[in-house]
């Protein structure tokens, strides 16, 4: 859910249900690394409410698009992490079986 103003799409607060620090902190990281973002932070209004608010302020672009790009970036990073990890595990396996065979 987005809470923003109609006049100025460059600043908005997004409220995610059923999410916590796991996603919010990771997204905050990718957003802060984006040069279009002038401010980004998150808060969990109440610990027993499964909800997190992410505030995004940009230098002009619509906050919604920038947030989407942030998530997209995070997703691509995850994808790369996964393929690198799988490759590393594969390498480890071939190396250890080679050593056993020697």
């Amino acid at each position, binding site marked *: 859910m*987005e809470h923003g103003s109609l006049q100025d799409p460059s600043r908005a607060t*997004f409220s*995610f249900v059923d*999410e*916590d*620090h*796991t*996603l919010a*902190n*990771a*997204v*905050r*990281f*990718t957003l*802060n*690394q*984006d*040069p279009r*973002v002038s401010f980004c932070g998150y808060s969990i209004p109440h610990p027993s409410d499964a909800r997190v608010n992410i505030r995004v302020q940009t230098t002009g672009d619509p906050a*919604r698009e920038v*947030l*989407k790009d942030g*998530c*997209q*970036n*995070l*997703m*691509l*990073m*995850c*994808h*790369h*992490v*996964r393929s*690198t*990890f*799988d*490759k*590393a*595990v594969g*390498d*480890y*396996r071939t190396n*250890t079986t080679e050593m056993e065979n020697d």
Partner: protein
Amino acid sequence: MSKQENKENKKFSIWDLPDVPMGQLPPHLQLQRTRVVCKADAPIHTDTVLYSGAYASMGIDNSLHLDSFRSNFKVEVIRLTKDDMEFDMIGIDAAIANAFRRILISELPTMAIEKVLIANNTSLIQDEVLSHRLGLIPINADPRLFEYLSANDTPNEKNTIVFKLHVHCKPGEPRCTVYSEELKWLPNGSEFIKESEKVDTKPSTYTSFSCSQNSLQNFSSNPISPTEDKIIIAKLGPGQEIELEAHAVKGMGKTHAKWSPVATAWYRMLPEVVLLEEVEDEIAEELKKKCPVKVFDIEDIGKGKKRATVARPRACTLCRECIRGGEEWEKRVALRRVKDHFIFTIESTGAMPPEVLFTEAVKILEDKCERVITELS
């Protein structure tokens, strides 16, 4: 101002001054950005510099580019066994490494015993304590093959695993121990008959399986059981008996820790131990003796002189013993941690191998991002 002076002024730019760093942070800022420095009293520079424009005034871009991430990110597997693994993850921020850790602990589903139907329990251990103990037994079943059981679903072969436990210690015999291996899997579902008010209906059980789980291809070759055989469930005295049925369902660690697929998942940053000055002779010996995990070694540099070297920085536990004993020690040794190098350890409870757990965790983070993207579109 004469014309010539003006021309000189124009040519002059402060970026040409020799002390302006070109594309590189000055060493003290670089240290602050990439290392946690552990002082004798407390660590400093523990946070990561997030903002992309943090060093803009120095002409340095702190933003993250996918391409550079892709070329810098590395994974090295150190140890990989059936249920535990250690690997180095290099070139990633703590925010994301921590997301993986949190997902591993609390958002990866597994199967665990949730409902226990007790027909008879004359043992010393109370029903509720017994049920709790049963819940914590890890079960060797791939949760990806099951569905969640929601409140108004009937338990069926796709969302429930049924175990039976019937043990009896005969009167006159010595006390016996009930182990997890005595939990017998019932691929056809519950065997307990439900009492119904209508007499004419045909007897129903507590589950409604439409087929045997045994016939599902994945389980016929690999029957479901607790991952460990020798977990003690209870002890029975002569004449005591336990008869029960345990229903395992799919769940997540954030609901209850029994559904957590890992015993632990944790990381530490790579320690970096640096000798700031030459440490020689007696002091070298003293330094070597100070460290309980033998980080330092001594090498001969000829002429009867000895010098301390940092041989095994990875073993450092950051106990800070080596910088205790006065100012002079803090001047000799610097203890640091590399902020983007994580030594990740995953200990699985046995339901899934650790490398699968990690890839699943990464996938979950991807799914979360995707959900946000579709919600915003």
